[in-house]
């Protein structure tokens, strides 16, 4: 791994952490959601500081250039994250559907009640 790439990894991870903290300060992000990004930054920093980890991983998985192992790892983590978000989205959609249906049925009942009174 080149020194430039190591510096890029470290700088990017610091910037990511700062950005996440700013978003929390602005109340744009829940703290429990932020932990993933801190974990993600920590991995980038570790890879930047200790390239031996990357070299070792590349050797085990038979990846020729260690830098490709960095990409592989990042892609892997992001795909898992993406799937998690997809699950969350489904749950969220389900909640919105539930809420919408509940609201409309209650409104229907209220409408009938008020017509009865008149």
């Amino acid at each position, binding site marked *: 791994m080149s020194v430039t790439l190591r510096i890029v990894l470290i700088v990017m991870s610091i910037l990511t952490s700062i950005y996440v903290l700013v978003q929390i300060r602005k109340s744009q992000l829940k703290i429990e959601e932020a932990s993933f990004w801190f974990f993600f930054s920590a991995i980038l920093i570790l890879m930047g500081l200790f390239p031996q980890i990357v070299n070792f991983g590349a050797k085990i998985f038979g990846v020729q250039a260690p830098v490709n192992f960095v990409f592989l790892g990042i892609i892997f983590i992001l795909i898992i994250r993406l799937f998690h978000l997809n699950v969350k989205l489904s749950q969220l959609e389900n909640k*919105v*559907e539930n809420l*919408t*249906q509940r*609201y*409309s*049925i209650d*409104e*229907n009942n209220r409408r009938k009640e008020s*017509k009865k009174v008149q």
Partner: protein
Amino acid sequence: MKTLIVIPAYNEAQNIERVVNNLIDNYNQFDYIIVNDGSKDNTAEICERNNYNYLDLPINLGLAGAFQAGVRYAYENGYDAVIQYDGDGQHEASYIQPMIESMIETNSDIVIGSRFATKKKPFSLRMLGSRMITMAIKMTTGKKIKDPTSGMRLFNRKMIEKIAQNINYGPEPDTISYLVSCGAKVSEVQVEMHERVAGESYLNLTRSARYMTNMFVSIFLVQFFRSKE
């Protein structure tokens, strides 16, 4: 059997009065509920003006969510059966009674208002999709459903309970297939359907392709991993 006609309606201002007035004037032995699925036109206004029984969804949920709203209403108000009925006048109300009778006679959980129960399915491009779904359901469940894409379906109380309370029970062929594999009994009654009189059809080529893909993935793959009760 206390039966509720559920009429999902998205932008059906041109059709809804004709469809619902027909039900009120000629079939008042059945209750009905319109589910206005966040229409952009004045469907809700028409319902209010005519004093119809309707649910007004403040946002658009799509057919599955809208139908489920109607089924939840049926569930909470103690209906024995629910019939899925189009808001655009494609379905003929005179077939509701025969479908209910068939449900009682054959002790079915689901009765499909089928265009091809006794009549032959034409060889058109549109029917190719229908044939493929029939084949997929036959292969996975062993049950031949001649008109799986018919939008006119009668569900009994047992099915109402499932549809009202769970996700992934949209009113589509894959749900029928899944319910068959759970042991639900399905029968078909021959009906006639009309071409839609006004408004736009939902299906185009891209949507049809996506629909078929979803149905195949659901019937051939997902169905086997869903819990069977």
